[in-house]
């Protein structure tokens, strides 16, 4: 499988480690009253689409960046990949 790294170009997925659903980026607010149930949903409940899906991959054998990859779970087509956090370096200078 090839992951189109936004900065480094297409790379073999063997260089990456898969973490899970991209929704893991949205950590719930621990101060809220129902924090426990929100954290429970955040960690354990998932949609399981047969189709496009956003997921987190860590480029462990590359630049150690976390990427949000959009992949079609039926066809394996990888539609795109973006940095989880773009610091905006590479556009200029």
């Amino acid at each position: 499988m090839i992951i189109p790294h936004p900065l480094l170009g297409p790379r073999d997925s063997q260089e990456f480690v898969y973490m899970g659903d991209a929704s893991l980026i949205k950590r719930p607010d621990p101060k809220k009253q129902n924090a426990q149930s929100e954290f429970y949903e955040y960690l354990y409940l998932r949609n399981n689409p047969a189709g496009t899906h956003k997921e987190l991959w860590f480029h462990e054998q590359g630049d150690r960046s976390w990427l949000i990859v959009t992949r079609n779970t039926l066809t394996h087509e990888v539609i795109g990949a973006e940095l989880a956090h773009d610091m905006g370096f590479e556009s200029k200078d």
Partner: protein
Amino acid sequence: MKALTPFGIEYMKKRLINGININEEEIKALASIGCAGSLHKALSRKLKKTFNMQTPSPGQSVSKNNNRLCWTAQGQWLLESDKTFSQGFDAYLIENLGKEFAITDQTSGWVKFSLSGNHVLTVLEKCIMLDCHEMTAGAFNRCSMEHIGIYVLCEKAKYEFSIYGPRSFAQSLYHSLTQAIKSI
């Protein structure tokens, strides 16, 4: 107290196998520089002043006066120098670039092998997933080889490359490289 190579000896290993020179190279000074997005301009200015270099783009490195600056990640670079800094390369860099950057000495942490020869690409395509055929001088990438995380630097297109590996993997890495060279 003696400094030793990762192989536990004082001299650098040098071999010629199948027309490929595989030489262990001494790393005199190596440090990583980390920089928050907002400080990038400031870092660029300091780098230009101290080393006359600009930060390279992803997959690249720039070199001037035997100093090389390599892109390793967003907001992170690896700087190598062929001078020795008795107080520590990181101390020198903090002094000259400033305290606002994350500077970490890596001099001891890596082993470096240079591979050169007419058939070096034939060796590299056995080891490395990246397309080394297309690399031009200065191309710098992190990848893995036989489950070891390495840096690959193209010194001279199609002819000379340097492979950096973590110090503790030195023996395994050297073995893998020499096996690959023997097999061509």
